[in-house]
Protein backbone atom coordinates (compact mmCIF):
# COMPACT_ATOMS: atom_id res chain seq x y z
CA UNK A 1 0.00 0.00 0.00
CA UNK A 2 1.31 3.43 -0.88
CA UNK A 3 2.15 5.39 2.24
CA UNK A 4 0.67 8.89 2.51
CA UNK A 5 3.43 10.35 4.68
CA UNK A 6 6.10 9.40 2.21
CA UNK A 7 4.04 10.70 -0.70
CA UNK A 8 3.61 13.97 1.17
CA UNK A 9 7.36 14.25 1.81
CA UNK A 10 8.05 13.86 -1.91
CA UNK A 11 5.29 16.24 -2.95
CA UNK A 12 6.49 18.92 -0.52
CA UNK A 13 10.04 18.67 -1.77
CA UNK A 14 8.76 18.99 -5.32
CA UNK A 15 7.00 22.22 -4.40
CA UNK A 16 10.32 23.63 -3.16
CA UNK A 17 11.94 22.70 -6.46
CA UNK A 18 9.19 24.36 -8.44
CA UNK A 19 9.24 27.55 -6.41
CA UNK A 20 13.01 27.87 -6.65
CA UNK A 21 13.55 26.93 -10.25
CA UNK A 22 12.93 29.90 -12.47
CA UNK A 23 13.25 27.74 -15.56
CA UNK A 24 10.33 25.57 -14.55
CA UNK A 25 8.27 28.60 -13.62
CA UNK A 26 9.01 30.07 -17.04
CA UNK A 27 7.86 26.89 -18.74
CA UNK A 28 4.72 26.92 -16.70
CA UNK A 29 3.62 30.51 -17.08
CA UNK A 30 5.43 32.24 -19.91
CA UNK A 31 5.34 29.48 -22.50
CA UNK A 32 1.54 29.11 -22.56
CA UNK A 33 1.04 32.85 -22.91
CA UNK A 34 3.57 33.11 -25.71
CA UNK A 35 2.04 30.18 -27.51
CA UNK A 36 -1.44 31.54 -27.11
CA UNK A 37 -0.46 34.89 -28.53
CA UNK A 38 1.67 33.53 -31.37
CA UNK A 39 -0.78 30.84 -32.39
CA UNK A 40 -3.67 33.12 -31.76
CA UNK A 41 -2.57 35.78 -34.16
CA UNK A 42 -0.79 33.53 -36.66
CA UNK A 43 -3.51 30.91 -36.95
CA UNK A 44 -6.22 33.33 -37.82
CA UNK A 45 -8.08 31.41 -40.49
CA UNK A 46 -10.72 33.91 -41.28
CA UNK A 47 -10.49 35.41 -44.69
CA UNK A 48 -11.06 39.08 -45.25
CA UNK A 49 -10.74 41.28 -48.33
CA UNK A 50 -10.38 38.56 -50.91
CA UNK A 51 -9.24 40.24 -54.15
CA UNK A 52 -12.11 39.69 -56.57
CA UNK A 53 -12.36 40.59 -60.21
CA UNK A 54 -15.81 41.09 -61.62
CA UNK A 55 -16.40 40.70 -65.32
CA UNK A 56 -19.81 42.25 -65.67
CA UNK A 57 -21.09 41.75 -69.21
CA UNK A 58 -24.66 42.65 -68.32
CA UNK A 59 -24.12 46.08 -66.82
CA UNK A 60 -27.75 46.39 -65.85
CA UNK A 61 -29.35 47.29 -62.50
CA UNK A 62 -29.50 43.64 -61.41
CA UNK A 63 -25.85 42.99 -62.01
CA UNK A 64 -24.82 46.25 -60.37
CA UNK A 65 -26.87 45.41 -57.29
CA UNK A 66 -25.24 42.03 -57.12
CA UNK A 67 -21.72 43.43 -57.36
CA UNK A 68 -22.66 45.98 -54.75
CA UNK A 69 -23.72 43.14 -52.46
CA UNK A 70 -20.26 41.57 -52.83
CA UNK A 71 -18.40 44.77 -52.18
CA UNK A 72 -20.42 45.76 -49.18
CA UNK A 73 -19.27 42.77 -47.19
CA UNK A 74 -15.87 42.74 -45.59
CA UNK A 75 -15.07 39.48 -47.36
CA UNK A 76 -14.35 40.76 -50.86
CA UNK A 77 -12.45 43.59 -52.33
CA UNK A 78 -12.86 44.63 -55.94
CA UNK A 79 -9.75 44.65 -58.11
CA UNK A 80 -9.72 47.46 -60.74
CA UNK A 81 -11.22 46.38 -64.01
CA UNK A 82 -8.28 46.94 -66.33
CA UNK A 83 -6.98 43.51 -65.36
CA UNK A 84 -10.31 42.06 -66.37
CA UNK A 85 -9.19 41.20 -69.87
CA UNK A 86 -6.82 38.59 -68.60
CA UNK A 87 -8.02 35.06 -68.36
CA UNK A 88 -8.70 33.89 -64.79
CA UNK A 89 -5.77 31.46 -64.91
CA UNK A 90 -3.35 34.28 -65.61
CA UNK A 91 -4.89 36.44 -62.94
CA UNK A 92 -4.43 33.66 -60.42
CA UNK A 93 -0.87 33.00 -61.57
CA UNK A 94 -0.01 36.64 -61.12
CA UNK A 95 -1.78 36.57 -57.78
CA UNK A 96 -3.83 39.60 -58.83
CA UNK A 97 -7.04 37.97 -57.71
CA UNK A 98 -8.19 34.97 -55.73
CA UNK A 99 -11.59 34.78 -57.37
CA UNK A 100 -13.33 36.01 -60.48
CA UNK A 101 -17.02 36.52 -60.95
CA UNK A 102 -18.46 36.53 -64.44
CA UNK A 103 -21.90 37.93 -65.04
CA UNK A 104 -23.30 36.99 -68.47
CA UNK A 105 -24.73 39.58 -70.82
CA UNK A 106 -28.33 38.48 -70.34
CA UNK A 107 -28.18 38.26 -66.55
CA UNK A 108 -31.42 39.26 -64.81
CA UNK A 109 -33.60 38.79 -67.88
CA UNK A 110 -32.95 35.47 -69.62
CA UNK A 111 -30.64 33.77 -67.22
CA UNK A 112 -29.88 33.75 -63.53
CA UNK A 113 -26.53 32.02 -63.98
CA UNK A 114 -23.27 33.36 -62.60
CA UNK A 115 -19.77 31.99 -62.92
CA UNK A 116 -17.39 32.04 -59.99
CA UNK A 117 -13.80 30.87 -60.41
CA UNK A 118 -11.68 30.43 -57.36
CA UNK A 119 -7.95 29.91 -56.94
CA UNK A 120 -7.81 26.69 -54.92
CA UNK A 121 -4.06 26.39 -54.52
CA UNK A 122 -5.02 26.86 -50.89
CA UNK A 123 -8.08 24.62 -50.68
CA UNK A 124 -9.19 25.82 -47.27
CA UNK A 125 -9.37 29.40 -48.38
CA UNK A 126 -11.06 28.38 -51.62
CA UNK A 127 -13.71 26.54 -49.65
CA UNK A 128 -14.35 29.55 -47.52
CA UNK A 129 -14.47 31.91 -50.46
CA UNK A 130 -17.06 29.69 -52.06
CA UNK A 131 -19.10 29.69 -48.87
CA UNK A 132 -18.95 33.44 -48.57
CA UNK A 133 -19.94 33.93 -52.20
CA UNK A 134 -22.83 31.51 -51.99
CA UNK A 135 -24.00 33.24 -48.86
CA UNK A 136 -23.91 36.63 -50.50
CA UNK A 137 -25.74 35.46 -53.59
CA UNK A 138 -28.35 33.67 -51.49
CA UNK A 139 -28.91 36.76 -49.41
CA UNK A 140 -29.16 38.91 -52.52
CA UNK A 141 -31.67 36.70 -54.27
CA UNK A 142 -32.84 33.71 -52.26
CA UNK A 143 -34.94 32.36 -55.05
CA UNK A 144 -32.26 32.71 -57.64
CA UNK A 145 -30.77 29.34 -56.81
CA UNK A 146 -33.74 27.51 -58.21
CA UNK A 147 -36.40 25.23 -56.81
CA UNK A 148 -34.85 24.13 -53.53
CA UNK A 149 -34.25 26.81 -51.00
CA UNK A 150 -31.72 25.62 -48.44
CA UNK A 151 -31.20 27.93 -45.50
CA UNK A 152 -28.33 26.58 -43.44
CA UNK A 153 -28.03 27.82 -39.91
CA UNK A 154 -24.64 27.52 -38.29
CA UNK A 155 -24.79 26.83 -34.58
CA UNK A 156 -22.37 27.56 -31.72
CA UNK A 157 -20.16 29.72 -33.90
CA UNK A 158 -22.44 31.56 -36.31
CA UNK A 159 -19.80 34.02 -37.43
CA UNK A 160 -17.33 31.16 -38.00
CA UNK A 161 -14.79 32.95 -35.88
CA UNK A 162 -11.57 31.00 -35.87
CA UNK A 163 -10.81 32.01 -32.29
CA UNK A 164 -13.70 29.78 -31.19
CA UNK A 165 -11.80 26.97 -32.78
CA UNK A 166 -8.22 27.61 -31.78
CA UNK A 167 -8.56 28.81 -28.20
CA UNK A 168 -10.10 25.55 -26.93
CA UNK A 169 -7.64 23.65 -29.13
CA UNK A 170 -4.73 25.57 -27.70
CA UNK A 171 -5.81 24.80 -24.15
CA UNK A 172 -5.68 21.12 -25.09
CA UNK A 173 -2.34 21.44 -26.86
CA UNK A 174 -0.53 23.58 -24.32
CA UNK A 175 -1.71 21.59 -21.32
CA UNK A 176 -0.55 18.25 -22.67
CA UNK A 177 2.80 19.66 -23.75
CA UNK A 178 3.57 21.42 -20.50
CA UNK A 179 2.34 18.70 -18.21
CA UNK A 180 4.24 15.94 -20.03
CA UNK A 181 7.36 18.12 -20.03
CA UNK A 182 7.14 18.91 -16.33
CA UNK A 183 6.93 15.40 -14.94
CA UNK A 184 9.35 13.89 -17.41
CA UNK A 185 11.97 16.54 -16.70
CA UNK A 186 11.44 16.41 -12.98
CA UNK A 187 12.13 12.68 -12.80
CA UNK A 188 14.94 12.51 -15.32
CA UNK A 189 16.65 15.40 -13.51
CA UNK A 190 16.72 13.36 -10.32
CA UNK A 191 18.20 10.46 -12.24
CA UNK A 192 20.85 12.69 -13.73
CA UNK A 193 21.76 14.27 -10.39
CA UNK A 194 21.91 10.94 -8.58
CA UNK A 195 19.29 11.97 -6.05
CA UNK A 196 16.95 9.30 -7.35
CA UNK A 197 19.37 6.67 -6.08
CA UNK A 198 19.24 8.21 -2.64
CA UNK A 199 15.45 7.93 -2.69
CA UNK A 200 15.55 4.37 -3.99
CA UNK A 201 17.57 3.07 -1.05
CA UNK A 202 14.79 4.31 1.22
CA UNK A 203 11.56 2.35 1.65
CA UNK A 204 9.75 4.68 -0.78
CA UNK A 205 8.04 2.66 -3.51
CA UNK A 206 7.89 3.49 -7.20
CA UNK A 207 4.20 4.36 -6.94
CA UNK A 208 4.85 6.70 -4.02
CA UNK A 209 7.56 8.52 -5.96
CA UNK A 210 5.37 8.88 -9.03
CA UNK A 211 2.26 9.97 -7.14
CA UNK A 212 4.25 12.40 -4.99
CA UNK A 213 5.75 13.91 -8.11
CA UNK A 214 2.43 14.27 -9.91
CA UNK A 215 0.43 15.90 -7.11
CA UNK A 216 1.98 19.39 -7.13
CA UNK A 217 1.89 19.49 -10.92
CA UNK A 218 -1.84 18.78 -11.00
CA UNK A 219 -2.38 22.09 -9.26
CA UNK A 220 0.03 23.85 -11.61
CA UNK A 221 -1.66 22.28 -14.62
CA UNK A 222 -5.05 23.54 -13.46
CA UNK A 223 -3.68 27.03 -12.84
CA UNK A 224 -2.21 26.94 -16.33
CA UNK A 225 -5.54 25.89 -17.81
CA UNK A 226 -7.27 28.80 -16.09
CA UNK A 227 -4.58 31.18 -17.28
CA UNK A 228 -4.92 30.13 -20.91
CA UNK A 229 -8.69 30.14 -20.68
CA UNK A 230 -8.74 33.59 -19.08
CA UNK A 231 -6.30 35.17 -21.50
CA UNK A 232 -7.99 33.41 -24.43
CA UNK A 233 -11.37 34.80 -23.43
CA UNK A 234 -9.96 38.24 -22.85
CA UNK A 235 -7.89 38.56 -26.04
CA UNK A 236 -10.03 36.60 -28.43
CA UNK A 237 -13.56 36.97 -27.02
CA UNK A 238 -14.26 33.26 -26.84
CA UNK A 239 -17.47 32.36 -25.05
CA UNK A 240 -17.69 30.01 -22.08
CA UNK A 241 -21.18 28.55 -22.11
CA UNK A 242 -20.79 25.54 -19.82
CA UNK A 243 -20.41 24.97 -16.11
CA UNK A 244 -17.12 26.03 -14.59
CA UNK A 245 -17.00 23.09 -12.18
CA UNK A 246 -17.48 20.65 -15.03
CA UNK A 247 -14.58 22.35 -16.77
CA UNK A 248 -12.39 21.97 -13.68
CA UNK A 249 -13.31 18.33 -13.22
CA UNK A 250 -12.55 17.29 -16.78
CA UNK A 251 -9.50 19.49 -17.06
CA UNK A 252 -8.21 17.81 -13.94
CA UNK A 253 -8.56 14.44 -15.69
CA UNK A 254 -6.77 15.71 -18.76
CA UNK A 255 -3.94 17.23 -16.74
CA UNK A 256 -3.58 13.95 -14.89
CA UNK A 257 -3.40 12.01 -18.15
CA UNK A 258 -0.76 14.38 -19.51
CA UNK A 259 1.32 14.18 -16.35
CA UNK A 260 1.19 10.39 -16.45
CA UNK A 261 2.36 10.52 -20.05
CA UNK A 262 5.36 12.51 -18.79
CA UNK A 263 6.03 9.87 -16.15
CA UNK A 264 6.03 7.22 -18.80
CA UNK A 265 8.51 9.24 -20.85
CA UNK A 266 10.79 9.60 -17.84
CA UNK A 267 11.03 5.83 -17.44
CA UNK A 268 12.45 5.63 -20.97
CA UNK A 269 14.57 8.79 -21.22
CA UNK A 270 17.94 8.73 -19.52
CA UNK A 271 18.70 12.44 -19.53
CA UNK A 272 16.73 15.64 -19.17
CA UNK A 273 17.46 16.51 -22.79
CA UNK A 274 16.12 13.21 -24.03
CA UNK A 275 13.07 13.53 -21.82
CA UNK A 276 12.36 16.98 -23.17
CA UNK A 277 12.65 15.90 -26.79
CA UNK A 278 10.54 12.83 -26.22
CA UNK A 279 7.83 14.67 -24.29
CA UNK A 280 7.56 17.31 -27.01
CA UNK A 281 7.67 14.72 -29.79
CA UNK A 282 4.88 12.71 -28.24
CA UNK A 283 2.65 15.67 -27.62
CA UNK A 284 3.13 18.52 -30.08
CA UNK A 285 2.61 16.98 -33.51
CA UNK A 286 0.25 14.15 -32.53
CA UNK A 287 -1.96 16.66 -30.77
CA UNK A 288 -1.89 19.10 -33.66
CA UNK A 289 -2.49 16.50 -36.33
CA UNK A 290 -4.30 13.56 -34.83
CA UNK A 291 -6.58 14.93 -32.13
CA UNK A 292 -9.11 16.45 -34.45
CA UNK A 293 -7.74 19.89 -33.67
CA UNK A 294 -6.54 20.79 -37.15
CA UNK A 295 -8.02 18.04 -39.26
CA UNK A 296 -11.36 16.35 -38.69
CA UNK A 297 -10.90 12.77 -37.52
CA UNK A 298 -13.70 11.59 -39.82
CA UNK A 299 -11.68 12.56 -42.87
CA UNK A 300 -8.58 10.58 -41.85
CA UNK A 301 -7.69 7.18 -43.32
CA UNK A 302 -9.05 4.32 -41.16
CA UNK A 303 -5.66 3.44 -39.67
CA UNK A 304 -5.03 7.00 -38.51
CA UNK A 305 -8.55 7.17 -37.14
CA UNK A 306 -7.71 4.22 -34.90
CA UNK A 307 -4.51 5.88 -33.72
CA UNK A 308 -6.45 8.94 -32.60
CA UNK A 309 -7.97 6.85 -29.81
CA UNK A 310 -4.67 6.93 -27.93
CA UNK A 311 -4.25 10.68 -28.22
CA UNK A 312 -5.48 12.22 -24.97
CA UNK A 313 -6.28 15.52 -26.67
CA UNK A 314 -8.83 13.75 -28.84
CA UNK A 315 -11.02 13.32 -25.78
CA UNK A 316 -10.23 16.63 -24.23
CA UNK A 317 -11.04 18.54 -27.41
CA UNK A 318 -14.48 17.01 -27.37
CA UNK A 319 -14.76 18.05 -23.74
CA UNK A 320 -13.43 21.57 -23.98
CA UNK A 321 -15.28 22.46 -27.18
CA UNK A 322 -18.37 20.92 -25.67
CA UNK A 323 -18.11 22.94 -22.48
CA UNK A 324 -17.01 26.26 -23.94
CA UNK A 325 -19.09 26.39 -27.10
CA UNK A 326 -22.04 24.07 -26.54
CA UNK A 327 -22.50 24.33 -22.80
CA UNK A 328 -22.21 20.55 -22.40
CA UNK A 329 -22.65 19.06 -18.97
CA UNK A 330 -21.34 15.85 -17.41
CA UNK A 331 -23.82 13.51 -19.08
CA UNK A 332 -22.60 14.63 -22.51
CA UNK A 333 -18.97 14.18 -21.65
CA UNK A 334 -18.62 11.29 -19.26
CA UNK A 335 -17.43 8.88 -21.95
CA UNK A 336 -14.55 11.09 -22.92
CA UNK A 337 -13.81 11.59 -19.23
CA UNK A 338 -13.76 7.87 -18.60
CA UNK A 339 -11.36 7.37 -21.49
CA UNK A 340 -8.98 9.89 -19.95
CA UNK A 341 -9.25 8.18 -16.58
CA UNK A 342 -8.46 4.80 -18.10
CA UNK A 343 -5.52 6.21 -20.00
CA UNK A 344 -3.96 7.83 -16.94
CA UNK A 345 -4.49 4.73 -14.82
CA UNK A 346 -2.87 2.58 -17.46
CA UNK A 347 0.09 4.88 -17.97
CA UNK A 348 0.69 5.25 -14.25
CA UNK A 349 0.73 1.48 -13.88
CA UNK A 350 3.13 0.94 -16.76
CA UNK A 351 5.37 3.74 -15.50
CA UNK A 352 5.52 2.23 -12.00
CA UNK A 353 6.32 -1.18 -13.44
CA UNK A 354 9.04 0.10 -15.71
CA UNK A 355 10.41 2.13 -12.86
CA UNK A 356 10.84 -0.98 -10.74
CA UNK A 357 12.32 -2.95 -13.60
CA UNK A 358 15.08 -0.39 -13.99
CA UNK A 359 16.35 -1.36 -10.58
CA UNK A 360 17.46 -4.83 -11.50
Amino acid at each position, binding site marked *: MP*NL*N*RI*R*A*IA*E*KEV*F*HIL*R*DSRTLAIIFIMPLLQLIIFGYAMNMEIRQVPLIVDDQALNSDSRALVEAFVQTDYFQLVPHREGNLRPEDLFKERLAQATLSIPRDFGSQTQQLFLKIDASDPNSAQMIQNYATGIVNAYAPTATGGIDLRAQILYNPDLKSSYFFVPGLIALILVMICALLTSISISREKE*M*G*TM*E*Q*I*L*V*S*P*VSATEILVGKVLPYILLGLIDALLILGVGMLLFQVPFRGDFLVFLLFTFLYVLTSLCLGLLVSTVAKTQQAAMMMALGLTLLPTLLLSGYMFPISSMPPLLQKITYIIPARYYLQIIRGIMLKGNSIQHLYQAGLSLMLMSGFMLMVAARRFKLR*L*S
Partner: protein
Amino acid sequence: MIHTRSLNKDFGDFRAVNDINLEIGKGEIFGFLGANGAGKTTTIRMLCGLLKPSSGGISVDGLDIVRHSDQVKQRLGYMSQKFSLYPDLLALENLEFYAGIYQVPFAKALRNVEEIIDQFDLRSILKFRTDDLPMGYKQRLSLVAALVHDPPLVFLDEPTSGVDPQARREFWQAINDLAHKGKTIIVSTHFMDEAEYCHRVIIMQDGREVALGNPAELKAMHSVANMQDLFIKVLGVEDAKSE
Protein backbone atom coordinates in the same frame (compact mmCIF):
# COMPACT_ATOMS: atom_id res chain seq x y z
CA MET B 1 24.20 -8.07 10.96
CA ILE B 2 24.67 -8.65 7.26
CA HIS B 3 25.24 -11.93 5.55
CA THR B 4 25.82 -12.82 1.91
CA ARG B 5 25.80 -16.21 0.31
CA SER B 6 27.69 -16.79 -2.98
CA LEU B 7 26.71 -13.40 -4.34
CA ASN B 8 27.02 -12.94 -8.11
CA LYS B 9 26.20 -10.13 -10.46
CA ASP B 10 26.35 -10.39 -14.24
CA PHE B 11 26.00 -7.57 -16.70
CA GLY B 12 25.41 -9.50 -19.91
CA ASP B 13 28.45 -11.74 -20.34
CA PHE B 14 30.47 -9.75 -17.88
CA ARG B 15 30.58 -11.03 -14.32
CA ALA B 16 31.05 -7.94 -12.19
CA VAL B 17 30.79 -9.67 -8.85
CA ASN B 18 31.84 -13.27 -8.44
CA ASP B 19 30.97 -15.49 -5.49
CA ILE B 20 31.22 -13.10 -2.59
CA ASN B 21 30.51 -14.57 0.86
CA LEU B 22 30.51 -12.18 3.77
CA GLU B 23 29.51 -12.17 7.40
CA ILE B 24 29.63 -8.69 8.87
CA GLY B 25 28.88 -8.17 12.56
CA LYS B 26 27.21 -5.40 14.51
CA GLY B 27 29.44 -2.43 15.27
CA GLU B 28 31.99 -3.46 12.71
CA ILE B 29 33.67 -1.11 10.26
CA PHE B 30 34.02 -3.19 7.15
CA GLY B 31 36.01 -1.91 4.18
CA PHE B 32 35.80 -2.73 0.51
CA LEU B 33 39.12 -2.17 -1.24
CA GLY B 34 40.10 -2.54 -4.84
CA ALA B 35 40.79 -0.61 -7.99
CA ASN B 36 38.07 1.07 -9.99
CA GLY B 37 36.02 -1.63 -11.67
CA ALA B 38 36.97 -4.30 -9.13
CA GLY B 39 33.32 -4.74 -8.11
CA LYS B 40 33.23 -2.76 -4.84
CA THR B 41 30.49 -0.38 -5.82
CA THR B 42 28.46 -3.09 -7.52
CA THR B 43 28.61 -5.21 -4.37
CA ILE B 44 27.63 -2.31 -2.15
CA ARG B 45 24.77 -1.42 -4.47
CA MET B 46 23.49 -4.97 -4.17
CA LEU B 47 23.86 -4.92 -0.39
CA CYS B 48 21.70 -1.83 -0.08
CA GLY B 49 19.06 -3.02 -2.52
CA LEU B 50 19.83 -0.77 -5.50
CA LEU B 51 20.78 -3.72 -7.69
CA LYS B 52 19.31 -7.19 -7.76
CA PRO B 53 21.89 -9.96 -7.44
CA SER B 54 22.03 -12.32 -10.43
CA SER B 55 22.29 -15.16 -7.97
CA GLY B 56 23.00 -15.71 -4.31
CA GLY B 57 21.31 -14.15 -1.33
CA ILE B 58 21.69 -11.27 1.09
CA SER B 59 20.14 -10.97 4.50
CA VAL B 60 20.21 -8.12 6.97
CA ASP B 61 19.43 -8.99 10.60
CA GLY B 62 18.18 -12.32 9.32
CA LEU B 63 15.75 -10.63 6.87
CA ASP B 64 16.10 -11.42 3.19
CA ILE B 65 16.59 -8.10 1.42
CA VAL B 66 14.38 -8.98 -1.53
CA ARG B 67 11.46 -10.43 0.38
CA HIS B 68 11.52 -7.94 3.25
CA SER B 69 12.87 -5.02 1.32
CA ASP B 70 10.80 -2.39 3.16
CA GLN B 71 11.94 -3.48 6.61
CA VAL B 72 15.53 -3.79 5.46
CA LYS B 73 15.55 -0.42 3.71
CA GLN B 74 14.25 1.30 6.82
CA ARG B 75 17.36 0.01 8.64
CA LEU B 76 20.01 1.21 6.27
CA GLY B 77 21.55 4.53 5.54
CA TYR B 78 23.40 5.16 2.29
CA MET B 79 25.84 7.80 1.22
CA SER B 80 26.50 7.58 -2.47
CA GLN B 81 29.80 8.13 -4.20
CA LYS B 82 28.27 11.00 -6.11
CA PHE B 83 27.05 13.92 -4.04
CA SER B 84 23.31 13.51 -4.10
CA LEU B 85 21.52 16.01 -1.95
CA TYR B 86 19.23 18.53 -3.60
CA PRO B 87 21.29 21.59 -4.50
CA ASP B 88 18.31 23.94 -4.56
CA LEU B 89 17.12 23.04 -1.07
CA LEU B 90 18.50 24.42 2.16
CA ALA B 91 20.70 22.01 4.09
CA LEU B 92 17.96 21.75 6.69
CA GLU B 93 15.30 21.08 4.05
CA ASN B 94 17.35 18.22 2.69
CA LEU B 95 17.45 16.66 6.15
CA GLU B 96 13.72 17.26 6.52
CA PHE B 97 13.05 15.51 3.23
CA TYR B 98 15.05 12.44 4.16
CA ALA B 99 13.39 12.32 7.57
CA GLY B 100 10.07 12.50 5.70
CA ILE B 101 10.68 9.58 3.38
CA TYR B 102 11.76 7.46 6.34
CA GLN B 103 8.69 8.66 8.24
CA VAL B 104 10.69 10.00 11.14
CA PRO B 105 9.20 13.15 12.73
CA PHE B 106 11.59 15.96 11.96
CA ALA B 107 12.20 16.88 15.61
CA LYS B 108 13.18 13.31 16.35
CA ALA B 109 15.35 13.17 13.24
CA LEU B 110 17.21 16.26 14.40
CA ARG B 111 17.79 14.67 17.80
CA ASN B 112 19.14 11.58 16.01
CA VAL B 113 21.82 13.61 14.28
CA GLU B 114 22.34 16.37 16.85
CA GLU B 115 25.63 14.98 18.04
CA ILE B 116 27.19 14.49 14.64
CA ILE B 117 25.97 17.91 13.49
CA ASP B 118 27.92 19.44 16.36
CA GLN B 119 30.87 17.19 15.79
CA PHE B 120 30.97 18.29 12.15
CA ASP B 121 30.30 21.90 13.07
CA LEU B 122 27.31 22.06 10.71
CA ARG B 123 24.86 23.94 12.90
CA SER B 124 25.78 27.29 11.37
CA ILE B 125 25.24 26.18 7.79
CA LEU B 126 21.88 24.47 8.14
CA LYS B 127 20.07 27.50 6.73
CA PHE B 128 22.34 27.69 3.68
CA ARG B 129 21.39 26.55 0.26
CA THR B 130 23.10 23.24 -0.30
CA ASP B 131 24.81 24.24 -3.54
CA ASP B 132 26.42 27.21 -1.78
CA LEU B 133 28.33 24.91 0.58
CA PRO B 134 31.98 24.00 0.06
CA MET B 135 32.72 20.40 -0.90
CA GLY B 136 33.84 19.34 2.55
CA TYR B 137 30.59 20.52 4.10
CA LYS B 138 28.52 18.85 1.42
CA GLN B 139 30.25 15.58 2.18
CA ARG B 140 29.58 15.84 5.88
CA LEU B 141 25.99 16.90 5.25
CA SER B 142 25.52 13.80 3.07
CA LEU B 143 26.60 11.59 5.94
CA VAL B 144 24.24 13.40 8.30
CA ALA B 145 21.39 12.98 5.81
CA ALA B 146 22.08 9.24 5.67
CA LEU B 147 21.70 9.09 9.46
CA VAL B 148 18.46 11.00 10.10
CA HIS B 149 16.47 7.80 10.60
CA ASP B 150 19.11 6.38 12.95
CA PRO B 151 19.87 3.30 10.83
CA PRO B 152 21.82 0.46 12.44
CA LEU B 153 23.57 -0.19 9.12
CA VAL B 154 25.35 2.54 7.15
CA PHE B 155 26.82 2.26 3.65
CA LEU B 156 29.44 4.75 2.58
CA ASP B 157 30.51 4.49 -1.04
CA GLU B 158 33.88 6.23 -1.39
CA PRO B 159 32.82 8.87 1.10
CA THR B 160 36.12 10.72 1.19
CA SER B 161 36.97 11.16 -2.47
CA GLY B 162 37.75 14.76 -3.24
CA VAL B 163 38.20 15.82 0.37
CA ASP B 164 41.43 17.13 1.92
CA PRO B 165 43.38 14.91 4.35
CA GLN B 166 42.41 16.89 7.44
CA ALA B 167 38.70 16.57 6.60
CA ARG B 168 39.21 12.90 5.85
CA ARG B 169 40.65 12.31 9.30
CA GLU B 170 37.69 14.07 10.91
CA PHE B 171 35.35 12.06 8.78
CA TRP B 172 36.90 8.81 9.89
CA GLN B 173 36.77 9.95 13.50
CA ALA B 174 33.00 10.33 13.09
CA ILE B 175 32.72 6.92 11.43
CA ASN B 176 34.63 5.40 14.31
CA ASP B 177 32.29 7.04 16.83
CA LEU B 178 29.27 5.67 14.97
CA ALA B 179 30.71 2.18 15.14
CA HIS B 180 31.31 2.63 18.85
CA LYS B 181 27.62 3.36 19.24
CA GLY B 182 26.89 0.00 17.68
CA LYS B 183 26.26 0.98 14.08
CA THR B 184 27.62 -1.28 11.40
CA ILE B 185 29.57 0.64 8.79
CA ILE B 186 30.28 -0.65 5.33
CA VAL B 187 32.65 1.57 3.45
CA SER B 188 34.43 1.42 0.14
CA THR B 189 37.58 3.33 -0.59
CA HIS B 190 40.59 3.37 -2.82
CA PHE B 191 42.72 5.21 -0.29
CA MET B 192 44.95 2.49 1.16
CA ASP B 193 45.75 4.36 4.34
CA GLU B 194 42.03 4.52 5.12
CA ALA B 195 41.91 0.75 5.19
CA GLU B 196 43.75 0.96 8.50
CA TYR B 197 40.67 2.47 10.08
CA CYS B 198 38.61 -0.59 9.23
CA HIS B 199 38.15 -3.54 11.53
CA ARG B 200 38.13 -5.86 8.58
CA VAL B 201 38.59 -5.37 4.84
CA ILE B 202 37.92 -7.30 1.71
CA ILE B 203 40.23 -6.72 -1.23
CA MET B 204 38.52 -7.30 -4.55
CA GLN B 205 39.84 -7.82 -8.05
CA ASP B 206 37.77 -8.59 -11.13
CA GLY B 207 34.74 -9.17 -8.98
CA ARG B 208 36.40 -11.75 -6.73
CA GLU B 209 37.63 -11.72 -3.18
CA VAL B 210 41.44 -11.86 -3.13
CA ALA B 211 41.95 -11.17 0.56
CA LEU B 212 39.69 -10.83 3.57
CA GLY B 213 40.53 -10.04 7.15
CA ASN B 214 41.82 -7.62 9.74
CA PRO B 215 44.30 -5.14 8.18
CA ALA B 216 47.01 -5.86 10.77
CA GLU B 217 46.65 -9.60 10.40
CA LEU B 218 46.66 -9.38 6.63
CA LYS B 219 49.85 -7.34 6.73
CA ALA B 220 51.48 -9.85 9.07
CA MET B 221 50.32 -12.77 7.01
CA HIS B 222 51.85 -11.36 3.84
CA SER B 223 54.76 -9.84 5.78
CA VAL B 224 54.40 -6.33 4.43
CA ALA B 225 54.74 -3.02 6.25
CA ASN B 226 51.71 -1.15 5.00
CA MET B 227 48.45 -1.53 3.13
CA GLN B 228 49.94 -0.15 -0.06
CA ASP B 229 52.49 -2.96 -0.13
CA LEU B 230 49.84 -5.49 0.83
CA PHE B 231 47.78 -4.33 -2.06
CA ILE B 232 50.66 -4.67 -4.52
CA LYS B 233 51.44 -8.07 -3.13
CA VAL B 234 47.96 -9.59 -3.31
CA LEU B 235 47.03 -8.04 -6.61
CA GLY B 236 50.42 -8.53 -8.19
CA VAL B 237 50.42 -5.09 -9.78
CA GLU B 238 50.51 -1.51 -8.73
CA ASP B 239 46.78 -1.30 -9.09
CA ALA B 240 45.82 1.21 -6.49
CA LYS B 241 45.75 4.96 -6.37
CA SER B 242 47.64 6.46 -3.50
CA GLU B 243 47.26 9.89 -2.03
